[in-house]
Structure formats: structure tokens, C-alpha cells
């Protein structure tokens, strides 16, 4: 069984981005870029399924600029067998990414696609669900446990107030939540091995997908700043301030 894992190159989660002074976006020149953390969890899960003998091949896919190759190499160091880069300079919206991935899935015919639940840059939380709809597949988002069986996958999901479990017929889509697993550290030998794994590059035109953005970003602005308050010397002062000044208790 083949598993497809889409991965996104994003600004590293430790970087505090700054809004450009002209309001056209955030400044990502010369900042550290990394694989979206939820996508690492997705790759780890796929790799574990392969190590458990339930999956034969793990294919990592990324869409974006040439440098996404680095993200794919990291993915192959975690455990993907090969990579596919859909190369484009266009800023891709989730719908366009879902269409590109559908085209790749139609070609690759995976039984399972595992994605991160959301990317930490645009915080959209859309691609997995959109891809499921376009493919006509069932979905289990925000997964905290995945059990791959014969022709089906049983997934425990993180929902408001607790957990729920779904059984999906394969092929299916799973999106990862935080507690699904803890991704491994990539080792130097695996980084070296990853350099030799195959990486194909295609263009959106090759896949017959129009990636023109649908939304227009009029501007990007700083959020309203919250100013620091005061440090109080003791608990009694705190309670008195909360009662008489802030009036919240």
C-alpha cells in the first residue's frame, strides 16, 4: 500500500514574523524556513506504518518554490522513499494546493493520504478536507490515533470536549493533530541517504491545474498591541486589584 504525505515549507515556528511596513505581507526574507510541524507528524506516522509492514511506499509531495526541495529532502530523511515537487512561484491558496494534490493522487493512486491539520503560516486548516471532497474520499481530521486495517482505517480524533472514533473505507484522508506521535530527530546518515532518493519535479501546467489565487489580500497589518501591566508584590494586592480595579471577580 502506498501513502502520500503532502508537506509545506513554512517560516520556522520559533521565528516571530514582522509585518512589512508597506502592509503588503510579512517579511520572510532571510528567516529560517522549516517543514510545517504537523506535516512532520504526518510523515512520522506514514514512516511508522511502513516500519510496521503495513505500508510499502511513502511518497512526500510539496508545492511551491524551488527551495521546497529542501523540505522534501528533510521528509526523505524522516522516512519518505521519494519526493515530488510541484514547482511554482505563485502564492498558492489551499484550494489550488488541494487541486494539485488531487492530480498527483490520481496518478499515484495511494490508499491513504496523511496531511498536517493546518499550516502554521496561514492557519487555514483546509487542504485535507478539500482534497477529500475533490477525490470523493472519506476523511478523519485532527487524528490522535490511526489504526490501519484491511480495507479500512480506524481513526481517533481530537474534538471539542474529548475524542471520537471513526472508521473509514480506504482510500481515505487523515489529518494529524499534535498528539498522534512525536516525530523522530533526523540523523546525519539518514540525511545523507535522503540525498540519493529520487525527487521529481512537475509544474502545475503539467498537472492541468489553474492555481490563480481567488482571494485578494488588500493589506496585512499588525494586530492591536496589548501593553504590559504591572507586577504586584503579593497575592493580597493581586486579589484586591482584581476586585476593585479590574472588577472581574
Amino acid at each position: 500500500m502506498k501513502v502520500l504525505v503532502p508537506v509545506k515549507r513554512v517560516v520556522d515556528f520559533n521565528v516571530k514574523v514582522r509585518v512589512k511596513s508597506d502592509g503588503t505581507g510579512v517579511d520572510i526574507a532571510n528567516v529560517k524556513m522549516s517543514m510545517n510541524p504537523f506535516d512532520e507528524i504526518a510523515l512520522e506516522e506514514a514512516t511508522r506504518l511502513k516500519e510496521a509492514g503495513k505500508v510499502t511506499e511513502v511518497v512526500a509531495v510539496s508545492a511551491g518554490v524551488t527551495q521546497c526541495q529542501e523540505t522534501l529532502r528533510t521528509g526523505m530523511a524522516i522516512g519518505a522513499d521519494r519526493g515530488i515537487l510541484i514547482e511554482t512561484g505563485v502564492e498558492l491558496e489551499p484550494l489550488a494546493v488541494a487541486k494539485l494534490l488531487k492530480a498527483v493522487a490520481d496518478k499515484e493512486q495511494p490508499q491513504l493520504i496523511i496531511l498536517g491539520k493546518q499550516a502554521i503560516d496561514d492557519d487555514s486548516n483546509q487542504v485535507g478536507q478539500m482534497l477529500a471532497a475533490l477525490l470523493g474520499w472519506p476523511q478523519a481530521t485532527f487524528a490522535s490515533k490511526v489504526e490501519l486495517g484491511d480495507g479500512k482505517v480506524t481513526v481517533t480524533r481530537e474534538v471539542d470536549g474529548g475524542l471520537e472514533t471513526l472508521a473509514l473505507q480506504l482510500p481515505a484522508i487523515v489529518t494529524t493533530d499534535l498528539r498522534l506521535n512525536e516525530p523522530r530527530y533526523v540523523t546525519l546518515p539518514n540525511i545523507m541517504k535522503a540525498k540519493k532518493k529520487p525527487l521529481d519535479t512537475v509544474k502545475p501546467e503539467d498537472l492541468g491545474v489553474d492555481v490563480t489565487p481567488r482571494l485578494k489580500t488588500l493589506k496585512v497589518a499588525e494586530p492591536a498591541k496589548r501593553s504590559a501591566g504591572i507586577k504586584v508584590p503579593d497575592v493580597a494586592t493581586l486579589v484586591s486589584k482584581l476586585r476593585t480595579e479590574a472588577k472581574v471577580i
Partner: protein
Amino acid sequence: MVALVIAEHDNASLKGSTLHTVTAAAKCAGEVHVLVAGSNAGAAAAAAAKIAGVTKVLHADAAYFADGLAENVSEQILAIAGGYTHILAPATAYGKNILPRVAAKLDVAQISEITKVDAPDTFERPIYAGNAIAYVQSSDKVKVITVRSTGFDAAAAEGGSAAVETVAAAADFGKSAFVGREVAKSDRPELTAAKIIVSGGRGMGSADAFKILEPLADKLNAAMGASRAAVDAGFVPNDWQVGQTGKIVAPSLYIAVGISGAIQHLAGMKDSKVIVAVNKDPEAPIFSVADYGIVGDLFEVVPQLVKELG
């Protein structure tokens, strides 16, 4: 222009998130309809009809709507989507799961987690964990939107008298099945609806240590939350998580205990009215957003706080 709100409910009653979504919908269009897709969900549909500002409730009932499966609910939305200029759902685990399927099938972009409606086609939404606000304009024929509850007041639950219209149920998608649910039993208020929240972070040190927060939460009738670090460390369940990838909250009072204040956490709580921070590190970033800070050992400060509250 007519907007359609997808109700989040448990068949018997509506979730509070639905009321906030109705307020956002009313800012988008002159008329607001609500879809209740459920199983024996007559009570939820009746409740939707009473929301102030709602002019029509569409009620689709089938056994396979009982558990809110994304595949089935999205098919139902698509079956009635014609004629609506806006389709909105709460940006909760429920709405986020369903709505992108609808957008993809309609071949339109989805605008996620809006916090403000500037015009019927222009919306504000936070990106990069709330470190920037994007003003986005959509030229799609239908605007498909998820709504962040903290950005909009709740519509009045009473006062409306909309007609409830039964609509034919869309067919069962059939490739997914609900197996079971483990609901955390709690007498405390729900995290996203609580007026006061007591949250713990990595500084708590262990799952056991979270017990020290319970008397404080009891005293204040508060919900309990946590930072991602505390969830990661396995101290508390994931649905306690406040932050970029967890819940977004804005209570009157947020008490952050042993939370350093990573940007991802601040993204989930910085719209709280009053923030109190307890941390032993005077340089912790949480103090830069806290109205009141106490530098000290939480294991001493928290019991003192409980005592002082009387």
C-alpha cells in the same frame, strides 16, 4: 443577499458557537438562514428559530446526521447551497471539519477564522499565530467562511420567531462510520464559553501538579486550560489546549500559571479582558501581555490565592 449559517448542535440543543456565527452572518447579508442537519434534531431546530435575526431555519433530519460526519453534513449543505451569497460555520472542530469540503465542491476559496467583517466581500483574519492580520477580499460568487467566536458577540438566543422548514435529507455518503465517543465529563464551564479560565503550562511540572489549580478553578467557577507545552508533556488532555493550534479564548479573566508565554499560546488568549500571570521567571514573555503579574513559585502563590479569595 442571504447568508446560510451551519448550526453546531448535539441534536438536543445548539452550541454557543452558532450564536456568534449568526452575528457574523448578519454583518455579511441582509437575511440569515440557519441549517440544522441532525437526527431527531427538532429541539435544536426550534432553538435556532428563536435566535434573534434569523428569518428561516432549514431542518434536515436523518439517522446518519446524528454524529455530524463531515461527509454527510457537507453533502446536505451543497444540496441547499444555491441562492446563498455567504455560507458560514463556527471555526470549531465541528465547522473546520466540514466547511472546506463545501468550498472545494463549490470551487471557491474558503476564508478561515474571520475576526471581522469589513464589507460583504472583505474580511479580517489572523495569520502567523495572530502576529499579523490579513484583510482579504473575495470575488467568488459564494463566500465560504469559518467564524472565530471571540471576534463576534453572541446573537440573542431568544426573541426571534423564524419559520422551520423541513428539507429533504441528502443521501448518506456511506464511506465513513461513527464508532464511538469519549467525552470528558466535567462540571466546569466549557473552555470557549467560560468567563474565567485558569491555565497551566510546562511550569506545572507534572499531571499531578495540575490538581493544585482545581481549588482555584472551583473558587472562581472557572474552566481549566493549558498551554501546548503542558499538553505535549502529557499533563492534560488536548482539548484543554489554548493557542494557535488549540482553542481561541477571550474570557473576562485569564490566569496563566507556569506558562512562559510562547507566541503560539498568546495567539489563543491575548484578547482576554484581564490577564494574570504567575511565573517564577521575571523575564517570562507572558508578563509582557499580563495586566497583573506575580513573580514567584506557583506552588506557593496558587494556594495563597485560593485562601485570599476566601
